[in-house]
């Protein structure tokens, strides 16, 4: 068992465990924390796939930023209610059936597709390549993304502004 396999299994078990906790935890705050764990685990998977830059971005943006905002939202709303947010679930059976069904289908497709291929050797610096193509080939999407983020920021500010 080499390092990659070990890392994969550790990450996979951690990921699946955290993800299950995200959806099963009764406490919304715990769910968010587990989501943070899952996101960090995803970053680990990215790094295992040699995409260190993406892993770092994932942690920086998601785990750092998003989780913070989510927690913030919970606390703000909870404080408005004045009681702890426990969240109930419903249709657990139906949801489980559908989720497991979808999973079975997808796994079946993966199994039958014969998609496995050798993992090619890394030839170039992916981070560098990404940086260059972001400012050349993907400049327009990149700029549009900036506009989108700005619009999202403004919209969020507008929605969440205090009532006059």
């Amino acid at each position: 068992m080499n390092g990659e396999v070990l890392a994969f299994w550790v990450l996979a078990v951690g990921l699946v465990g955290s993800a299950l906790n995200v959806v099963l935890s009764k406490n919304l705050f715990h769910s968010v924390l587990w989501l943070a764990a899952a996101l960090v685990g995803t970053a680990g998977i990215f790094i295992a796939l040699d995409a260190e830059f993406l892993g770092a971005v994932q942690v920086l943006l998601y785990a750092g930023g998003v989780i913070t905002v989510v927690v913030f939202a919970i606390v703000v709303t909870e404080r408005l209610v004045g009681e702890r947010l426990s969240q109930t679930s419903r249709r657990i059976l139906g949801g489980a059936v559908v989720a497991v069904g979808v999973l079975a289908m997808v796994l079946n497709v993966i199994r039958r597709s014969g998609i496995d291929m050798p993992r090619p050797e890394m030839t170039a610096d992916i981070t560098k390549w990404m940086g260059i193509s972001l400012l050349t080939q993907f400049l327009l999407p990149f700029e549009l993304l900036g506009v989108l983020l700005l619009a999202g920021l403004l919209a969020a500010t507008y929605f969440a502004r205090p009532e006059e």
Partner: protein
Amino acid sequence: MPLSAYLSLAAVLFSIGLFGVITRRNTVGILLGVELMLNAVNINFVAFSRFHGTALGMIFTLFAICITVAEIALGLALVILLFRMRRTSTADHIDWLKG
């Protein structure tokens, strides 16, 4: 690890996220499930990208992450707004569209 291992892991994550989206009553909880699903998709992108030897998928993932961040910000703003108007963050209570 083979590609199918990564894909299967992503599939499991996706299904778990789906389960969460279906079963959660709370809007924030639904959002968390969506996040899990998006993550699964991102894993697929990166895995395919890595195994095909092209970084296009990673670029896409980068965009996906950024857009998700925007989406989260907006979604949470909406949750807060909804909360202000209806004093609840339970999705079941938001049924203005009831036929």
